[in-house]
């Protein structure tokens, strides 16, 4: 990170931290006994995870008939959840890769947690395409492996197959990126630990010694992975959107989907980062590292992407009218005013209208508002996927086949359960690994720590004064 930061930027680390304090603040949560809040949260998350496991078992045992999907609506909450989780999984890589390339210093405070969230979200997302299969025991058919059936290959024309590659690649790269970043920090924890913990962290940190060579290699690897991950951020949701865009169903068959989906994914990803970070900074007392600056920056991203998504919604409406294609026109008319009008209303208000309050700086910097907004966006984005998937299918070409769809308890259980899976993983993560990237935060301390920014400010002020004097 550059040592120089614009003097008009606010500090990104507050509390006049020293390097030692940073290490202490961030490592402490992994070393002390869990707080009561953590225990309660974990118990709750594991309960939901148990619900999830039961619902998965029930679905596989009984069949997809335990859901309320029907001959007209073949995808419902399952694929809605899939796309929602994948979308959430976009923020981490965006922060770590694209913001790294753009040299955004504020990313250091949140990138570790965001990346972890990405990985957990993709894990959750990956569940649904599997569970939704009628014959999950034959799921390996979707991989192009050499076989004796001909050999029989997968259908490379199918967007669902592209999904398999897109998601698995994304997951792999994100995982590597995240773990690479973790290595120096795990070594830090190791150095502070004793006994069995020391051993385990020793294994996990691959014998990191912090030598210059290590750092050099680590830097290059991070950069390479960032380079690899950057196109993935754009490609994954583009490909997920192809599931719909390449179909013939009016309301799905639209070319706007790739950018619209990517923007929506970043939008929802950042919202989820906000949700998690606001809780984490409070519970783990990391307000000096995840500051209002960070929150405001992310709110700006939310405002931007939310507006892009909103423009996409309006463009869709316009194009459907402009197309003069009866099926397309009806599909959008039905979305907005048909039997599922309330989902469209929820989507529009949560995604397009509500983020507009972030035009106000005061709102952007208000933690409570931000937290509520992040929940709104999460809800809105879930509805967006539901609107696209279920309401489109419910009334497509042939009126005779129109149908309605409401989930069963199994489907609701799977969704809530996947939240349990996500939070279980996240809560374990905050216990075992530094939630903030220690090494990276330290790297910006001298440019963005409050004691230094004040100094710069003073310096600049004096310099300006001196310049003005000399000019005179």
């Amino acid at each position, binding site marked *: 990170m550059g040592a120089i930061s614009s003097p008009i930027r606010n500090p990104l680390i507050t509390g006049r931290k020293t390097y030692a304090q940073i290490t202490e603040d961030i490592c402490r949560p992994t070393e002390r006994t869990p707080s009561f809040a953590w225990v309660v949260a974990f118990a709750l998350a594991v309960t939901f995870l148990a619900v999830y496991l039961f619902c998965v078992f029930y679905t596989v045992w009984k069949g997809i008939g335990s859901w309320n999907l029907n001959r007209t609506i073949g995808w419902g909450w399952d694929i809605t959840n899939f796309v929602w989780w994948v979308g959430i999984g976009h923020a981490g890589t965006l922060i770590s890769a694209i913001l790294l390339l753009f040299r955004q210093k504020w990313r250091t405070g949140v990138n570790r947690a965001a990346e972890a969230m990405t990985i957990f979200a993709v894990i959750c997302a990956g569940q649904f395409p599997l569970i939704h299969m009628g014959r999950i025991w034959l799921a390996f058919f979707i991989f192009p492996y050499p076989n004796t059936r001909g050999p029989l290959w997968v259908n490379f024309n199918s967007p669902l197959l592209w999904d398999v590659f897109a998601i698995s690649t994304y997951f792999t790269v994100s995982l590597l990126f995240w773990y690479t970043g973790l290595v120096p920090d795990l070594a830090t924890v190791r150095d502070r630990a004793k006994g069995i913990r020391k051993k385990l962290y020793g294994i996990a940190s691959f014998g990191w010694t912090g030598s210059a060579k290590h750092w050099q290699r680590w830097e290059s690897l991070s950069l390479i992975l960032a380079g690899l991950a950057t196109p993935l951020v754009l490609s994954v949701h583009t490909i997920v959107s192809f599931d719909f865009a390449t179909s013939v169903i009016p309301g799905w068959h639209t070319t706007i989907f790739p950018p619209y989906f990517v923007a929506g994914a970043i939008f929802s990803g950042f919202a989820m980062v906000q949700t998690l970070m606001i809780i984490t900074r409070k519970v783990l007392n990391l307000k000096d590292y995840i500051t209002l600056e960070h929150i405001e920056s992310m709110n700006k991203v939310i405002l931007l992407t939310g507006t892009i998504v909103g423009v996409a919604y309006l463009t869709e409406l316009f194009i459907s009218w402009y197309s003069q294609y009866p099926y397309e026109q009806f599909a959008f008319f039905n979305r907005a005013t048909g039997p599922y009008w309330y989902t469209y209303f929820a989507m529009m208000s949560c995604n397009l209208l509500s983020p507009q309050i972030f035009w106000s700086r005061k709102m952007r910097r208000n933690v409570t508002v931000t937290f509520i907004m992040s929940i709104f966006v999460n809800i809105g984005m879930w509805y967006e996927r539901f609107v696209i998937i279920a309401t489109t299918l419910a009334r497509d070409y042939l009126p*005779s086949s129109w149908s309605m769809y409401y989930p069963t308890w199994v489907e609701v259980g799977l969704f809530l359960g996947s939240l349990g899976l996500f939070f279980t993983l996240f809560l374990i993560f905050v216990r075992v690994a530094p939630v903030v990237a220690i090494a990276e935060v330290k790297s910006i301390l001298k440019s963005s720590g409050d004691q230094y920014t004040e100094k710069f400010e003073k310096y600049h002020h004096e310099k300006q004064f001196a310049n003005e004097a000399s000019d005179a």
Partner: protein
Amino acid sequence: MQDKSKNVWVGKADLVGDTEFVEVESSKFFDLPVAQELSDEKSKLLATPAKRRDFLKMMGFSLGAATVAAACEAPIRRAIPYMTKPDAIVPGVPTYYASTIVRGGDVCPVLVKTREGRPIKIEGNKLSSFTKGGTSARAQASVLDLYDSNRYAHPMKDGQNSDWSAVTNEIKAKLKSARGIKLISNTIVSPFTKKSIADFIQTYSNAEHVVYDAVSSSAMLDAHKSAFGTRALPSYHFDKANVILSLDADFLGTWISPIEYAADFIKGRKVKGTNQKEISRLYAVESAMTLTGSNADNRVVVKPSQSAAALVTIYNRVASKTGGSNASYSAGLSDKVIAKLNHMADDLWNSSRNGRHTLVVNGANNLGEQLLTIELNRLLGNFGSTITTDRACYLRQGDDIALGKAINDIEKGAADVVIFMDDANPVYDTPNGAKLAEVLNGNVTSVALTTRPNDTSTLCSYICPIHHNLESWGDAEAYAGELSLIQPVISPLHNSRAREVILAALSDNLVDPKEERMDYAMLRNSWNERGGQKFWEQSLSDGFANGSSGGPMVLGTVDVGAAVRSFASRNTSEREVKFYETVNIGAGQYASNPWLQEMPDPIYRTVWDNFVTIPVSWDGKRTISGMNGWSTGDVVEVTIAGKTMNAPVVDQFGVVDGAHGMALGYGRKNSGAVASNVGINVFDLMSTDDDGYTQYYAPLSFGNSVGESDAIASVQYHHTFGIKDKNAEGVTLNVDEQSISAIATGYQGALTDRSILYHANIDELESAADDLHHKREHAHHLNEQTIYEGHDHLYDNGHKWEMNVDLSSCIGCGACQVACIAENNVPVVGKEQVKVHHEMTWMRIDRYFFGDIESPNTAYQPMMCQHCDNAPCENVCPVGATQHSSEGLNHMTYNRCIGTRYCANNCPFKVRRFNWLDYTAADLFGANENDPFGNDPETPFYAENLTRMVLNPDVTVRTRGVIEKCSFCIQKIQQGKLLAKSENRALVDGDVTTACATACPTGAIVFGDINNKDTEVAKLEKHPLNYYVLEETNVRSAVGYRMKVTNRNNKINELDA
């Protein structure tokens, strides 16, 4: 080895065909089936001891011939090789036998397809003089009844299993000491059975045969008796009539001989070209919407009690023109209805002149109405043209009055032995059922000759199980002199006997007790007078023979004044409910068949239930709602004929407030797992008129909704395609489009701009054809705007299979749908699964209403996989489980399917079906098998070995988690190809056809090779009214539809506008 077509040889010896070489070569490999090899005595193989490979082959063969033709009680588990292979059975090759499906007055000459001795499919018999190869849903489904696990397997006494000799002797003893004997049956069309009844009565002179029909034509028969002197029906020729008026006679669906009438009716409705000026016109005056009413060009709804008033109105109008005697009666018909009826009468009268013909049919069970109908037909000059009397119809013989008398006799003790024949179920399906049940519980010996439990048999002291139709020998005479034969296609599965044998045994008339099939011997004897052995064999092979028809019936005079006198005593209520017969389960006699229970009602699109129909109305703004705000599935309190009950309602177009409908045939008790406790029994709500004829209606009033709203399983939620009415400003609009949204007013064209259903009235045919042509041209233009080159040329060679459906010919009877289920092993899923839209039917018949909201027209659109050449389903499957064939077929590979349902989502026609649960009991684990009847049996329906015998071995039974869909009957295509190949010729039109096309009584579905320019389907593709559904989406579907053409009387329509 020396095949002329073979031009590869090994060495000189092979080339010249050296005999020794050939012999050595041919013994190297076993090309022939083992059975054939073993039967070849000259083969050297027999001389050599069996080797290991022979053993394996034997074993393979025995497993292959898994089911053995006759007498297998547990057919699936035991694999027994034929010691001597029956001539007719070649494993893998179906054999067809001519037979006749008879159930009371429903007669359908058929060919029964058997595989390895198992009947698995019913096809129509084209040699039949009246059905001409058509079938009905009921006939198609009858094969499943054979394998009904609820059938009686043994004779029973007081509910305990017994044996034949004990039961026969005991009944015989009772008969001998009986004060009176009543044989109660539905219509019997078999001369053979009638003869054995006559023989029985000869022995027991105090015996009486009483015939009744659940849906009675008793008054009609009596009217004809009084007018013609013979108690039989004439033949109707719907093909010869230019204008047809049906007064509550559902001749397309259920009335007397619907298969025949439907085929004839459609003959007069075929549209050959756009310059055609006329097709026949159908008027319907009815109360509840029937199949006939829905197919009518103009339909007038009256309350059931007003049927006589409607008839009198028409009669008087016609009579006033001929100078015939006027009848004086009118009963509160509205002016609009009278105006419509007068228009109909005028049209009838005008059409009966100048060599054109009309026909009036009446379904009322009322003597006066029937007499007046005869007189009306006489005035219109229909006798001799559209009604002929030289060929008496025996399809209905029931006598309500005789049954009433018989029940009284039993009650009074004048008769103390009652024999119910042929599944007759009067405890359930007559208004006096409750009384009869009470009597049966008293000091009466009751015997049921029945195949399966029903409401009556469960009250009987003795059960004598009879053969199923497909196990029986017999004959049927639907029309005088036109005999069709019934021959068994499988040995009796249970310890049952032929009804004739039982009667003969009871009356000591058995011809030869040692004969294995006494019924055969008796039938053969009864046919001796008709012709010799050669005649018999030919008749058996054809399934059909001609006998003597007797003379024509001669029309006497009808006293109109007397006929209408009884009308005056009729009461009209504010609201009435008409009890109508459904196409699928009839009056309940078919209720134990799950295929029919799950066949959606063509009009109401519901399964597994009956209900009260209520009208819908348009509020002038943007809501179409059911009466009292109720909608389909709501349960409300209704009082019918003084009895209050909770009944579900269905809100439907074409229903008029005051004239509601409720289906017969539901609410049976003690009738096995399928039929019992499905819906509400309405027979005990009916009454008889002054003459003693059953009246199929009752007064009705509504109470409040009871809160439940999910009582009905329906397969279609949206019902309309352009329903018109005036809005608040008086502008006529498509009001279904206005009301399509939840929170906004819809826009015009939301539905009707879709290229799904095209319809036109005959007078605007040319312009409609023009419009269609332009629309199709536009679609072609759009489809050309592609960056990809088409690949149509790939299908230029070889076969390219296509289908063509004539929407004008499709009457919605559902025969195709049940045929498809039978042919393709489509599972039954049960009401609860249909409620969540999990029905599995590969083909469905979409029903759309269009036209005026009060009197809409109906279009039926059979919809199955369209086998698109640009199939959207194919490219989205991640594992390539669905692929296109070089013959234009869209294939489904069940083994490869992992069940992502992406294909189903991407199908514009929504014809792909997913196995949501273990519907076919094919899973590894038994714990999650679907239970279609909701009665939690020990062995689920599909796990029963007996049920599984109905499965077509050529079609894979699909497991849970895979997609399935219409395959254009790929197995039949393959079979046709193999046949042509074995005969060393090219395929010709007719070699290959699908189950739906074969089943259709009206020829609405045509299937064939479009690359062969001589096929009908290739010609129909060029028909000016032909179109492809959603053509502009460029999916390039392979099912053409021909525009629905109606022949509305605009004068009547103007009254609605």
